[in-house]
């Protein structure tokens, strides 16, 4: 290094000790400032859990102008629990999404007016999801609500009867008008005695769809307008059903704050379980972020009943529906057709790769939502972990199966720790018994 200002350079004998001295100081400082192994581990842990201390509230839903309207939520709450919105008068949303069971039903597959093929997920925290249901065939919380109400095996109700019920019931009508103002039908309430609903994609035409087609377009439009508000009220209500903080969230905060007492909110086994989840099994390649989901779709290669390819098309069946759904974020009844969500819907690809893909479920409250997977095939978390550990029976779907999945070969302790960790994700506060 040239030092132009120094007139005389120190001779070699002076420079060597100087350099040595410098190197010595460097190593001293380096040694002194190097953290111990334990400190390194703690710093790594802090970094890995920091995310959970930054969990925000439920994001604004611009596709539903009434998402945060209390009156709309109040109407939604009434409807959520009202079994009259079903063809046999016995099934409400709460039949399957039972508040006493963390808004699930505990059944392998859902049973409503008929028996379905999918397991009932919780609605706790659903407002945080980009796509609703296992295959994501609804892209907003409110549009999802239109599905079960009119699906044959769920509530088997219909659009005309739903509008009529709200219109004819004084309590429901008052709640509706408090939120949305006068019902814009201008028609006498008993006029539409006939049940009618639009034909769902992939469903067979029936009397109800024929009756819908027979309505004059202006009446269909009026029905759709009211029905869209009914489901938006269900969206507003379900927004209030968030997944509340878990013991793991408290632990994360304590770790970041270096609060030794607080860090005891997890047992040693639970805390080790996070390391297994995050570093060993790398479950958060898919179960990532504060909600433990990437919000997207994967095929785990779960075998069909006879060990062959499963019948459920999963994501592949959902995309065509989303593209034409008037209730999607990009559809006629959305209040944000130019938003991010609508852009995604328009950009969805219908690749063959999407066949059989299911949405990565959130793992919050997972201890309370057995049985597991889209078809409820696993009765316990032990069974789920056993699958991930060995991938036994998994179908090799060539490039279709996620290349990230490989047998883990965990020890018995690691499996127990992992399960203990998963159970620490249940919210601490009791779930609102609304």
């Amino acid at each position: 290094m040239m030092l132009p200002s120094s007139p005389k350079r120190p001779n070699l004998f002076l420079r060597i000790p100087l350099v040595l001295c410098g190197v010595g100081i460097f190593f001293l400082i380096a040694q002194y400032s190097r953290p111990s192994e334990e400190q390194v581990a703690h710093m790594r842990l802090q970094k890995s859990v920091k995310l959970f201390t930054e969990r925000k509230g439920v994001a604004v839903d611009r596709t539903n102008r009434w998402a945060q309207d209390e009156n709309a939520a109040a109407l939604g709450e009434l409807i959520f629990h009202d079994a009259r919105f079903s063809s046999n008068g016995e099934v409400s949303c709460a039949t399957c999404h039972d508040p006493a069971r963390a808004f699930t039903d505990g059944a392998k597959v859902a049973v409503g007016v008929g028996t379905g093929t999918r397991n009932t997920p919780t609605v706790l925290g659903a407002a945080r999801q980009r796509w609703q249901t296992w295959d994501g065939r609804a892209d907003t919380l409110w549009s999802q609500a239109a599905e079960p109400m009119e699906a044959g095996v769920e509530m088997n109700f219909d659009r005309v009867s739903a509008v009529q019920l709200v219109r004819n019931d004084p309590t429901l009508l008052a709640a509706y008008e408090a939120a949305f103002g006068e019902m814009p039908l201008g028609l006498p309430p008993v006029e539409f005695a006939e049940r009618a609903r639009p034909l769902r994609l992939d469903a067979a035409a029936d009397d109800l769809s024929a009756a819908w087609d027979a309505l004059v377009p202006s009446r269909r439009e009026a029905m759709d307008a009211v029905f869209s508000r009914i489901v938006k009220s269900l969206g507003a209500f379900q927004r209030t059903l968030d997944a509340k903080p878990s013991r793991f969230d408290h632990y994360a905060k304590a770790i970041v704050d270096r609060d030794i007492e607080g860090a005891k909110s997890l047992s040693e086994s639970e805390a080790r379980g996070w390391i297994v989840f995050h570093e060993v099994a790398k479950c958060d390649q898919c179960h990532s972020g504060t909600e433990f989901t990437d919000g997207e779709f994967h095929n785990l290669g779960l075998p069909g009943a006879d060990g062959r390819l499963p019948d459920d098309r999963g994501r592949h069946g959902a995309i065509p529906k989303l593209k034409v759904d008037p209730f999607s974020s990009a559809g006629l009844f959305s209040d944000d057709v130019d938003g991010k969500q609508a852009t995604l819907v328009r950009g969805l690809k219908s690749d063959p790769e999407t066949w059989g893909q299911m949405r990565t479920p959130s793992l919050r409250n997972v201890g309370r939502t057995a049985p597991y997977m889209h078809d409820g095939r696993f009765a316990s978390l032990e069974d789920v972990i056993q699958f991930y550990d060995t991938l036994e029976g998994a179908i090799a779907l060539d490039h279709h199966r996620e290349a990230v999945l490989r047998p883990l070969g965990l020890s018995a302790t690691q499996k127990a720790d992992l399960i203990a960790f998963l159970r620490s994700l249940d919210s601490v506060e009791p779930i609102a018994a609304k």
Partner: protein
Amino acid sequence: MNRCIHLFFCLVAMQCLVACGGSSSIDTSWETAKSADGTYQVAWRVVGGLIPRADPFDVEIRILDAQGKPADVECTIDAEMPEHGHGMNVVAEMQRRGTGDFLAKGMLLHMPGRWSIMIDATHGAVTERAQFLYLMP
């Protein structure tokens, strides 16, 4: 004395590097590369500066021709994970804002790992690709 000062600055610099390594998203202000046959200079950056994990984002793209002028081309963008054998679940919506000036809306990289981002410039029947690697932490 000078050496001590040097040492001090070295340590400070190292400290800064370590601190930077800790951030989970990488600033990708205008990445540039030549297209495969060297015809175009392709530059892109993320609106907002950062690629969020598993959340939608938009990308600005500028394409220059061999003379360094905005290229009169059509543009598409896609991303895939070479090791996983899959790509994005969506196609970005491409808006042309001017000659060689594009906005891709609705990109979504949903998994950690190596992503290959491919920007294609098409003039007539000829398409040239510029490729970028991005490591999602």
